[in-house]
């Protein structure tokens, strides 16, 4: 009973397919706000606030150029966080979708792994849309927002970012029994990460221990990786990717364990 149960690829695929079947029906309406929101940040902060930032911008880039890749990363975080919190909670507690699935040859561990993968998929899909918009805007306004061909690696990176934040979101979901508790998750985890992970200002310029603390948080590495891939990476990007892989792997089985306890008595 206490044995570690690894997800089966087959079962994981089946639940992923269920989500994809449903997503195909409404992807157009789902995609639009997700493209629009980062554009609002770009306009308000990049152009509005950016106008007050001295010529030369941040590290030789204009302010819009500086924040655009970071917003790709935070967008993936938000997409995966909503998926693994509210959406997963509704499927688990209200619609009882998982109760039905686990009476088939698909097990709880497959369901949870599929939800990770699905959140990653959504993050990558939205991010790819947003990335395309950035590329087009860069051409239209003659201020390239995506300047390196390494940017083709951004979508798979967003997949990893999505899976990573799905693991943390699902962990929270697996432990709570009231939907309003998500306010804590978003206020105490998601929003601080959004503000202090180097999207809007270089966190490394802060006095110790702020940069050191940032290094131990997931979005910091996600932002670094996206920014490096958008502008032409240094070998340091490998550290960020490795950090995210280790973090994800370390927590991967924990929500599975708790979800199993909730779904199987």
């Amino acid at each position: 009973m206490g044995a570690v149960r690894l997800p089966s690829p087959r079962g994981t695929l089946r639940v992923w397919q269920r989500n994809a079947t449903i997503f195909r029906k409404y992807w157009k309406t789902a995609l639009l706000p997700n493209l629009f929101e980062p554009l609002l940040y770009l306009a308000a902060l990049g152009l509005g606030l950016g106008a007050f930032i001295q010529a030369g911008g941040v590290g030789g880039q204009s302010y819009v150029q500086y924040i655009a890749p970071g917003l790709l990363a935070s967008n993936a975080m938000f997409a995966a966080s909503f998926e693994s919190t509210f959406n997963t909670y509704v499927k688990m507690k209200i619609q009882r979708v998982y109760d039905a699935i686990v009476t088939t040859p698909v097990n709880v561990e497959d369901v949870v792994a599929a939800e990770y993968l699905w959140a990653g998929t959504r993050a990558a899909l939205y991010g790819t849309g947003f990335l395309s918009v950035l590329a087009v805007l860069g051409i239209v306004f003659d201020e390239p927002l995506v300047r390196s061909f390494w940017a083709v690696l951004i979508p798979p990176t967003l997949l990893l970012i999505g899976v990573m934040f799905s693991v943390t979101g699902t962990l929270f979901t697996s432990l709570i029994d009231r939907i309003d508790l998500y306010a804590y998750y978003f206020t105490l985890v998601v929003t601080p990460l959004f503000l202090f992970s180097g999207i809007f200002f270089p966190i490394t310029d802060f006095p110790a221990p702020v940069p050191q603390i940032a290094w131990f948080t997931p979005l910091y590495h996600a932002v670094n990786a996206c920014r490096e891939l958008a502008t032409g990476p240094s070998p340091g990007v490998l550290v960020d990717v490795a950090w995210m892989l280790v973090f994800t792997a370390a927590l991967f089985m924990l929500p599975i364990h708790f979800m199993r306890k909730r779904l199987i008595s």
Partner: protein
Amino acid sequence: MKQRTEESQSSARGTSIVARGLNKSYESFEAVKSVDFEVYRGECFGFLGPNGAGKTTTMKMIYGAAVPTGGELTVAGLDIRREERAVKRRIGVVPQENNLDEDLKVKENLLVYGRYYDLPKKETMRRAEELLEFVELTDKADAEVEHLSGGMKRRLLIARALINDPEIVVLDEPTTGLDPQARHLVWERLRELTSEGKTLILTTHYMEEAAQLCDRLVVMEGGVIIAQGSPDELIEEYVSPEVLELRAKPDALEKLRALVEDLSDAVERAGEALLVYTPDAGALQERIRNSGVPVDNTLYRRAGLEDVFMRLTGRRLID
């Protein structure tokens, strides 16, 4: 009512489910206390009992939603703890609470469910159409699940449980909350399933349902099995074949009780009525008439499973 099942015949068919000392404890209480039962292949086997008797927990152990804390449970010849996935592949489940996928339309529910069993796409499509026909939902194939009536949802749950052509179908209160028409339609379909050779296991609160469908059944209370047999056997064993229901004023009821006690197998007080189980109702009625005790209303009927159930589990209200 079904014919009494001969032991020898049944064991020749082989067993579908065997429970030996099956136990399920939660932190604070024991839901199922070391029960033994055998379900033969191709029969309809019922679990009766008041709420909280351990029926649903037993069902959940069979379909893997609860893990036994003791004893043995083999389903379709497989150990439920060691071969969970293989067991789940061979059974179909109709849960007590509706858990259809509301994000999917009626037919999509069946198609997506078929994928969980790795059925080939064509095969799933064919079966989905057949099953919608079977449960009379063909014209609702493209409807949203939330627009279905309670009876339709239950029928769709039954169709969903059959998508993998299971050898065993587990039904937890399959007709609770349905109107009589819907209930009879479900019964008809379930009878067709047993005639196809599927093994059915169901829990129910309706004695009529158990009498109509079940070849054999067990009565559970407080986590233990307190009686088992075919409906006829249970009636024979636990109540007399005839019942006299006497309604009268409370003080008259007590007089009547004294009057009939020696001529009856059992006398029970149920509110304003006295239930007298007797092998000879005629003699009793005669005696009551002669005594002159005023009776408002007399009902004479054959004993049924409901009498067995009330006799075994008592007339007090549970939870």
